[in-house]
């Protein structure tokens, strides 16, 4: 039974990946290039140590974004506003981090606290609008994204800009060394060769992993997590069981926003030490895709984040060698999402009918005994 379960669980993502590679290959053939050559190039470049480090660095914020979205999805709340929440949180926490001087651990903790609070409160606006005015969270979070991005631009330009900097790049002042997150190069290099200078494995990946573990424990081990899942599975039954629907909406949005607040920190604390115009945007939307691929499960989202991170990191080689456009990776990612959703549904149906047969079988012998 358990072996079958594991095989069933593995079937969906494997099918999804095979299917999307097949589709992308067809696209490449139509475009007149050799798919095999492109995949080989990506594989050989993608297995280099530096690419793997880049993969982990890309996957870390994607994982946090995926978890932030998944928290909402688990109770049928669509937090499309992760994008705005994390950009706003990154700007404000980077500014606070640059403005204070504290002992190392405290400094980092303060920056994380500010980021989570900002993300949480901003997501809470959508939650509040939903419970008090019935505004659908998709509408409100999309509009709040626009507000957040405009506010970020305004605040950066007028209030938070580093006046000492004379370059064209608008940026906040740099966070002092005590507020930076150490990299993990030393740990990795004890097992491998030395990583090329300039490449660092961001230590924030440990925080992301911890968030995943906590999310899993929260969902499966706590009463509040059970209430949240119950609401997602059947809001009417959950309400009858004593779950307060409004409180659950608020809690979920606050929690989702808190995790969203962390998305920008791997970059801010591990690489740039500031918020500037080069800050990576769009992770909130990619997070939706990652959550879908990962089926809103902490382990699944990790696989999704690593897959997307690897594709993003291995793709640039296509520009350098051969004539395959790197945009093929975007097609691949899109098809992965679609085929993941489809193959999960197919596997789910197979599992359900299997289970129904098992249940029917469990009924029969006893009836025969009674007869």
């Amino acid at each position, binding site marked *: 039974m358990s072996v079958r379960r594991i095989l069933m669980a593995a079937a969906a993502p494997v099918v999804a990946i095979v299917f999307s590679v097949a589709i992308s290959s067809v696209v490449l053939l139509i475009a007149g290039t050799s798919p095999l050559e492109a995949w080989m190039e990506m594989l050989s470049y993608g297995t280099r140590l530096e690419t793997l480090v880049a993969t982990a660095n890309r996957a870390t914020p994607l994982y946090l974004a995926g978890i932030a979205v998944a928290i909402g999805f688990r109770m049928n709340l669509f937090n499309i506003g992760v994008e705005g929440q994390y950009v706003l949180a990154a700007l404000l926490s980077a500014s606070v981090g640059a403005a204070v001087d504290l002992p190392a651990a405290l400094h980092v903790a303060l920056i994380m606290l500010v980021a989570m609070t900002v993300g949480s409160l901003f997501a809470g606006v959508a939650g509040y609008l939903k419970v008090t005015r019935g505004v659908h969270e998709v509408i409100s979070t999309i509009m709040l994204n626009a507000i957040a991005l405009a506010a970020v631009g305004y605040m950066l330009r007028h209030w938070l800009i580093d006046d000492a900097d004379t370059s064209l790049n608008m940026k906040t002042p740099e966070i002092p060394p005590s507020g930076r997150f150490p990299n993990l190069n030393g740990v990795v290099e004890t097992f491998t060769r030395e990583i090329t200078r300039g490449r660092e494995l961001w230590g924030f990946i440990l925080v992301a992993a911890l968030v995943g573990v906590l999310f899993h424990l929260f969902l499966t081990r706590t009463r509040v997590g059970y209430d949240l899942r119950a609401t997602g599975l059947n809001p009417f039954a959950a309400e009858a069981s004593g779950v307060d629907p409004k409180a659950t909406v608020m809690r979920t949005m606050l929690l989702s926003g808190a995790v969203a607040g962390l998305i920008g920190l791997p970059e801010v604390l591990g690489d740039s030490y500031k918020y500037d115009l080069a800050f990576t945007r769009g992770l909130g939307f990619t997070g939706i895709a990652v959550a879908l691929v990962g089926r809103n499960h902490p382990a699944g989202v990790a696989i999704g984040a690593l897959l997307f991170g690897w594709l993003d990191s291995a793709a640039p080689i296509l520009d350098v060698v051969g004539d395959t456009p790197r945009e093929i990776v975007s097609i691949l990612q899109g098809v992965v999402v679609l085929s993941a959703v489809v193959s999960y549904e197919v596997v789910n149906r197979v599992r359900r009918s299997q289970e129904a047969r098992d*249940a029917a079988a469990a009924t029969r012998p006893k009836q025969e005994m009674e007869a």
Partner: protein
Amino acid sequence: MTTPAVELSGITKRFPGVVANDDVNLRVAEGEIHAVVGENGAGKSTLMKILYGMQSADEGRMLVGGTEVDFSSPSEAIEHGIGMVHQHFMLADNLTVLENVVLGAEPRRRGLIDRKAARRDLEALGASYGLDIHPDDLVETLEVGERQRVEIIKVLYRGARVLILDEPTAVLVPQEVEELFRNLRELKARGHTIIFIDHKLEEVLAIADTITVLRQGRTVATVDPAEVTAHELAELMVGSELPTPSTEPRVADDHVTLAVRDLSVLDGSDRPTLDRVSLDVHRGEIVGVAGVEGNGQGELIEAILGLCQTSGGQLLLDGEDIGHWPVRRRREAGIGYVPEDRHSRGLLVDAPLWENAMLGHQTMAPFARGPFLDRSGARSATARIVEHFDVRTPGIDTSARALSGGNQQKLVIGREMAASPRLLVAAHPTRGIDVGAQASVWAGLRAARRDGLAMLLVSADLEELIGLADRLVVMLRGRVVAELDPATTTPRILGGYMTGADE
């Protein structure tokens, strides 16, 4: 004898755990209004869905105008001149009447919609049937009765000769009902055949030429309305010759567990759906609530649980005012709940059984410890429920969806009983489950009553009510209209109060 417009014979349709239609026969003569009556869950809707091609029968034959048919989709039924007016209207609010009527069957000219032809056809249709229509009104501006007329025209526009109307009067006010009946008589005069599903007996007697009664998935009788009374029809619907769940001696004492005082609930348009209801449930007593569906029973239950807003009155649990408590506090205080529809209110169908067993009790031992779930406690408690209430399942990790309806219901009842509630509020605890499961549910309820459980039992099964309850109240239009002793009550008497026939 002429060929019947529709003839169904031996129709059987099974769903997992339930037989919705069991050897049903229906013969509808050309040009008549034929009513199909029965309680909710008697199999009327399933039968009509089969006739309209929305579901296919497991067994049986269907003849339309003498030819054998086997529809696999509604469009095939429409081709054979059968149309259906659904209880919940299928109209696009933001389109006009004209656009709605032609939607999906648009007259075309060179690939474009021929609006002129559409309008001409529609106006001709309206004129010939005396149906009052304004083709350019937006559907969202129409009253309910007008929307229903649009639905009927939609069906006629597609050339239907046989019209199925699924509880058409459920959404109408009395004046609209009269208007509808005028329209139906007009249709009949023009040779259309009408199959009319309902459970309001006076209406059926007023409009139908022939009545077929369904009960628990079977055809029990086909009668002439001129030869039956509302009483007799009610009796046929609920069935007085079924085996009775046997009553046990009274064990109730003087202690009032639940006191409901002048409780009122208003609907969206401020009309009372529960109107100053008062009743007591004593310790060790089962109070049965009889009534035709939609006469306030659902609101009464939801108000007791705290699932709906009350507009007045008091609720006392063991003397304590619980009127302003949230649902969770009421559940924790010992109110058990067996919902009317286990799928919508009672189960997380995609979650494993052990997570379903804690639903409603997730804050209490053995399911929780402090802010955390007690997984091992929950699992062993579930195993006990499964064992004790004979839930047939491969294991407690099976998802609730995989179980048959009867086993799901046993799990729900078992879960509520295992928590030893002070008060159990149960709605239709044996609806839609097979006879064996029904008997074990009854046994469970009776055992709990012996142990001093106070229970409010809402049921459409009058035999169940008379057999289990110590006291019966009848609800009609949101009020308690009668209080009866089950020892001296028959389904016939109850039916009279329920339909207001004795007013």
